[in-house]
């Protein structure tokens, strides 16, 4: 590959915390890679696995689910349920050998702009090491 691989990351960010954290990173002018496309959701608990699957099958190189810290979910327990759901999803992808490492779950509060920026950096670095998601160019999935 002549050009450096720039991963595409889809981020499902909770309105009440991680999304606000991302916003804060922006307004505080904290630099972070532009690889992430953010989708605002009302709670990490509202992210069904179908969305994560879809992003991966359409060629996202990594997916981030950002939610409130345990105990802080606006809807009390959405993030605990999201956690179970993503554990299950990763478990299934592991059995199928379909790179569960491409799914990231992070608890980032509204005041953690720096953590958001660091998380995106970390994901970009790790994903560059992994290389592009092989599902992206599959026409027969």
């Amino acid at each position, binding site marked *: 590959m002549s050009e450096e691989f720039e991963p595409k990351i889809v981020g499902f960010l909770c309105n009440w915390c991680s999304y606000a954290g991302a916003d804060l990173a922006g307004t505080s002018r904290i630099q972070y890679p532009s690889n992430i496309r953010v989708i605002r959701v009302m709670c990490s608990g509202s992210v069904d*696995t*179908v969305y994560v*699957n*879809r992003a991966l*099958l*359409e*060629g996202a190189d990594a997916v981030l689910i950002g*939610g409130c810290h*345990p*105990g802080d979910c606006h809807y009390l*327990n959405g*993030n*605990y*349920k999201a*956690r*179970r*759901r*993503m*554990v*299950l*999803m990763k*478990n*299934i*992808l*592991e*059995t*199928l*050998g*379909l790179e569960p490492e491409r799914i990231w*779950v*992070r*608890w980032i509060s509204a005041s953690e702009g720096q953590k958001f920026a660091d998380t995106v950096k970390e994901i970009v670095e790790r994903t560059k090491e992994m290389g592009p998601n*092989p*599902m*992206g*160019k*599959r*026409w*027969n*999935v």
Partner: protein
Amino acid sequence: MAEMMLPIQDGDIKTTVNDLLKGLLRSGKVSAVIAMQETPSGKSAFPTMVSDPEKMDANVFAPLLPVSTGTMISRITKVRGSNKPITVVLRSCEMRALMELVKLNQADLTNVTLIGVDCPGTFPMNTYSSFPGDKTPTEAVLEGGEAEKYMRSACLSCKDPVPENVDVVIGIYGVDLKKGLFIDTRTDAGEKLLEGIELVKTDAKARVKAVEDVRKSKDAVRAKFIEERSDIKGIDKITEFFDTCVNCHNCMKACPICYCKECLFDSSVFDLEANKYVAKAENKGSFKTPTDSMLFHITRFNHMILSCVECGLCEQACPSNIPLMDIIIPIAENAQKEFEYLPGRDSEEKLPMIVYREDEFQDVGEK
């Protein structure tokens, strides 16, 4: 009363059990019985609801699983449970599916008593319909041996052929089938149901040992099955596995615990404007239609695998003969282990995806 034997009349297992069920109707203890009954041609058998004792012609060991009785009980009771007493005869995987449906509020066991039968395994529909040799499929399966080679792979590696969560068990393991069937009444309701039926004492130890043995040998087959398929991994193998999938969703429709009233994949959620498809082609370079086969399968696994009872109905329903159990059994094994969950174990247990513990999976979300 716990471990007893139902003596077999004239060496005829089918009639013996049928008479017992007839008796339940005649005595007025139950208003209806649901049990496997062969169609007149003998080519098939279905869970059949019978209220007229004269029409009772059950063959509870018919080695065929055209549908799950669990699904049928759900259909019959989901609008409203029964006021009248019903007895259902079902096999272990059907019992497990039924328990999962109860947890999903899609089946109501009010006034329902369950008789579980040991399952010797089932054949694919077409094998059953034109069974090779002189024996009937039922005779062949009860004799064991030879019949195994025709059995569905789900049955060969069955998770547990002996039903647990029932009021009465009718057993074939650990008894001399020329003499009798093992009867285990496990609940008060079961005891009441069998009141007045003549049973003889039998050797409980032989039963315990036989059940242990059959479970052990099935576990071994299942472990080997999983081991032998451990190379179906990675994007190349998985896409190849589903290459012949025509995205008909039959697997989902046949599945007893695929619980949604309307599947997301049958809804209009995926109906996009033509421009979106063109954008997809531009993004990926090309894509096959129908789209989203893999998305369907992986999403389906995420939604139902923790409740999967490994009945193999999905595989049986597939028009492309995709050996779905080859990947479903390993996925179910690993996922259910992760959540320490066994579908059908306990109807009071909550489904793993609706509960949580604060102190679990704590590394997820942090690092």
